[in-house]
C-alpha cells in the first residue's frame, strides 16, 4: 500500500517536473536561436553598411576627350637613342635630361585646350577652372604617353580621363547638392560644366580600373588605388608562406614524432600555445626592435612585415599541424614500422602525406589571418604614404588593411568614405576566397578513418 503511494508520488513528481524541464529546454532553445539571429543581424548590418557605401565606389566618373598633343606647347628635343660608342651610363644620363625637359611641359594647357571645345558656356578668364574637372594625375599620364612614344606629338587621341574627386562626389550626389556655395568645395562654374558634360554623355560613370591598377595618391585623389598595397601584402604573404609554413610544419613534426616526452618539451608546448595567444601588436614592437634597430633592415618594407607576420603565424601552423598529426591513427605508424620502415620513412612516407589536408587548411587559415593583420605593421612604419608600386620586398610599401586605415584618415571625407568601403570589400573578398579554399581543400582531401 505504502509502495503504491510512493510510486504515485514519484510519478506525480516526474509529471510535475516535466513541465519545468520542458520550460527550461524551451528557454534555452529560444536563447540559442535568439543569439544566432542577433549575431546574424549584426553581421548583416555591417555588410549592408559597407556594401551600400563601397559598391558605388567601384564605378568612377570619367570624361572622354579628344586630346590634341599640340607641338606648340610640347616643345621638346628628339628623344635620345643609344649610340653604338656610348656607355649605358652616359645614355641614361642623356635620357634622364630629356625626361626632365619633358617634365617642364605644361600638360595642363593641353588638357584645358582639349576640354574647352566641349563646354557651351566658356570665357577665357575661366581657364584655371577647367583643369579642376580632371584629376591632376592625368597630366602625368599624358606626359608618360609622350615619353613612351614622342611621335604622338601633333596627333589627336581619344582618351578617357578620370574626373577630379570633387567632381565625382558632386555627380554621384555624395554631397548635399542643395548646399549654398560657401559650403561646397567646387566653384559654381565647375559644377555647371560637370552637370552639362554629364548630361550630354562626355562624362560617364565607368568601372574604376584606377582602384585596382594605381598605387595610392594624395596629389590626385581620384586616381588613388590599391595596387601598391596589394603588391605589399602579396610580398608579405609570400614571405609568410615560405618561412612560417616550412618552419612550422618541421617544428610540429619534430615535436610530435621525434622529440622525447619530458619536462623540456612540455615547457616548449606550453610556450607555443602561449605564443599563439600573444596580442599581435607585441610582435610589431618586437619586429621594430629586432629587425629594424638590430638587423638594420629598412623601415616600411614588406620584408620586415613578412618576418613579423611569419613569427605571428608560426604558432598557428605548429598547433594545427600537431593536431592533424595526432589525429592520424597509430596503426598506420605501427604497420609501417612493422614492415621495416625507419622512423623517418614512417613519418615522411606514410604519416605526412595523410596529414597534408589538415596542414594545408591550418596554413591557409594562418595566412588569411596574416593578410588581415594591421597592428604590428603600424609599428614597423608600414603606415607611411607610398606613391609607387614596390618593385621588391625591400621597397617601401603598405598593406591592404593598412591602406584602409590610411584612407579612413584622408581629409576629403566625401570621396574617401566610399573608397575606404570599397577597399574593405576587396579585402573581405580575398579573405573569403582564402577561407573557402581552405574549406574546399579539407572537403576534397579529407580522409575518414
Amino acid at each position: 500500500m505504502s509502495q503504491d503511494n510512493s510510486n504515485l508520488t514519484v510519478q506525480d513528481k516526474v509529471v510535475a517536473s516535466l513541465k519545468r524541464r520542458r520550460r527550461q529546454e524551451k528557454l534555452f532553445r529560444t536563447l540559442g536561436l535568439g543569439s544566432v539571429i542577433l549575431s546574424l543581424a549584426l553581421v548583416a548590418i555591417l555588410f549592408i553598411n559597407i556594401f551600400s557605401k563601397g559598391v558605388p565606389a567601384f564605378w568612377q566618373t570619367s570624361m572622354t576627350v579628344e586630346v590634341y598633343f599640340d607641338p606648340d606647347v610640347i616643345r621638346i628635343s628628339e628623344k635620345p637613342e643609344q649610340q653604338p660608342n656610348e656607355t649605358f651610363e652616359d645614355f641614361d644620363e642623356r635620357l634622364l635630361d630629356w625626361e626632365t625637359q619633358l617634365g617642364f611641359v605644361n600638360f595642363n594647357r593641353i588638357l584645358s585646350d582639349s576640354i574647352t571645345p566641349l563646354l557651351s558656356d566658356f570665357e577665357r578668364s575661366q581657364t584655371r577652372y577647367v583643369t579642376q574637372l580632371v584629376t591632376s594625375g592625368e597630366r602625368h599620364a599624358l606626359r608618360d604617353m609622350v615619353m613612351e612614344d614622342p611621335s604622338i606629338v601633333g596627333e589627336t587621341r581619344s582618351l578617357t580621363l578620370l574626373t577630379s574627386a570633387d567632381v565625382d562626389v558632386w555627380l554621384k550626389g555624395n554631397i548635399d547638392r542643395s548646399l549654398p556655395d560657401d559650403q561646397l568645395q567646387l566653384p559654381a562654374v565647375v559644377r555647371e560644366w560637370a552637370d552639362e558634360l554629364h548630361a550630354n554623355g562626355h562624362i560617364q560613370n565607368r568601372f574604376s580600373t584606377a582602384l585596382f591598377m594605381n598605387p595610392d595618391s594624395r596629389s590626385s585623389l581620384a586616381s588613388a588605388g590599391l595596387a601598391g598595397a596589394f603588391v605589399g601584402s602579396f610580398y608579405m604573404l609570400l614571405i609568410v608562406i615560405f618561412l612560417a609554413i616550412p618552419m612550422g610544419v618541421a617544428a610540429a613534426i619534430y615535436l610530435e614524432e621525434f622529440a622525447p616526452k619530458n619536462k623540456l618539451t612540455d615547457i616548449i608546448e606550453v610556450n607555443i600555445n602561449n605564443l599563439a595567444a600573444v596580442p599581435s601588436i607585441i610582435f610589431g614592437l618586437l619586429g621594430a626592435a629586432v629587425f629594424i634597430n638590430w638587423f638594420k633592415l629598412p623601415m616600411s618594407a614588406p620584408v620586415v612585415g613578412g618576418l613579423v607576420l611569419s613569427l605571428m603565424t608560426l604558432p598557428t601552423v605548429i598547433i594545427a599541424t600537431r593536431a592533424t598529426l595526432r589525429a592520424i591513427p597509430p596503426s598506420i605508424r605501427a604497420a609501417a614500422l612493422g614492415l621495416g620502415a625507419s622512423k623517418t620513412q614512417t613519418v615522411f612516407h606514410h604519416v605526412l602525406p595523410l596529414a597534408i589536408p589538415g596542414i594545408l587548411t591550418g596554413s591557409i587559415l594562418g595566412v588569411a589571418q596574416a593578410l588581415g593583420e594591421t597592428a604590428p605593421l603600424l609599428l614597423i612604419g608600414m603606415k607611411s604614404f607610398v606613391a609607387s608600386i614596390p618593385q621588391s620586398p625591400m621597397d617601401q610599401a603598405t598593406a591592404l588593411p593598412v591602406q584602409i586605415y590610411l584612407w579612413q584618415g584622408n581629409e576629403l571625407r566625401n570621396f574617401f568614405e566610399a573608397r575606404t568601403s570599397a577597399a574593405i570589400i576587396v579585402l573581405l573578398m580575398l579573405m573569403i576566397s582564402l577561407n573557402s579554399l581552405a574549406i574546399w581543400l579539407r572537403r576534397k582531401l579529407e580522409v575518414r578513418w
Partner: protein
Amino acid sequence: MNMKRFATLACATAASLVVFSASAQQRDVIQIAGSSTVLPFSSIAAEEFGNNFTRYRTPVVGSGGSGGGLRQFCQGVGANTIDIANSSRAIRPNELENCKSNGVEEVIEVKIGYDGIVFASRAGGGRFELEPEHVFLAQARRVPQDGEMVMNPYSSWAEIDSSLPDQEIVLAIPGSNHGTREVYEEKVIMEGCMKFEQIQALDSDAQDDACLAMRTDGRVVEIAGDYTETLARLESNRNTVGVFGLSFYESNRDRLQVATVSGVTPSIDNIIAGDYPVSRPLYFYIKGAHIGVIPGLQEFAQFFVSDMTSGFGSILESAGLIPLSDEERDQVLQTIREKESL
C-alpha cells in the same frame, strides 16, 4: 623527397634573408615622418617630386605627430633612420640637444608656409563668434570669478557669453603629441587667459599652471589621432566644437561650420594679411648628414619650397597651404643650398 624539399626551401629563405640584410645598408628613397598637419602637403610634394624627376624615387611619407616625428628623426644617423621630420612647430631646444647627443649634428630647418587653426562645429548648428577668453573659460580647470579661482562652473557656451549659442560645452582639442596643441595653447588659451587681471597678477609659472590646467569632467576631449577622428567626434556628439587645420576644414566645408575668432573669419587671405590670430608656420627638418647619401634629398627640399610647388597658384596652395612671402622663400632656399644647420 619531401624532406629534401623542406631543406631546400629553408636554405633558400635563409640565403635570401642574408642577401636582404646585406643590401639593407643602401637606401635610395627619401623617408619622411612627423606632423599630421604637414602630412598632406608633404605627400603631395613627394608625389609630384617623383612624377617630375624620373631619376629619383618617390619619397615615402609617414605620420606620427610633430613630437613623434622629431623623436624618430633624432634617433641617429644611418639608412634605417628617417631623413626628414615634418613639424607643425619649431623644434624645441631639448629635442635639438637630444638629436646632437645621438649623433645627428646637422639639422637644417626649412619653413614651408603657414597654416591656420580653426574652431569648427557641425554645419547647421549655432554660429560661434569666439574670443580667446571664451575658449579659455570653456576648457580651464579653474576660472577667475569675483576675485577668486573657482572650479569651472560652465556647462553651456551661453553661460560664458550671451552672444554664444546655448549649446552644451564639449571641446575636442589636439592631443599633446600634435604640434597644433602648442600653437593652440599659446595663441588661444594663454591669450584668453591673460585678459583676466587676477591671472596677470600671478608669477609666470603660476600663470602657466592656471591657464593650461584643463577641466577633467569630460567636457574637454584630447584627440591623439588625425582630424578625421575629431570629425568623427563631431558627428557622434553634435554639440562638439573641434579644433582643425584650415585645410581640413576647406575639404569638409559641407559638414563643418567655422567659428570666427576675435571677429575674423579664417581664410587664406585673412591669414596672409595677419588678421586671423591663430596661425603658425609649418616646418620640416633635414638631416644634413644624409645629404649626398640619400639621392635627391637636397633636390626634394628645393622642389618643395620652390615657387612652382608651394607658391601662389601652386598645387600646395590649392591643397590649403598658405605660401611664404617671396623674401622668406629666397631665404629658405638659400638655407637649403648652403646647408645651414641649426
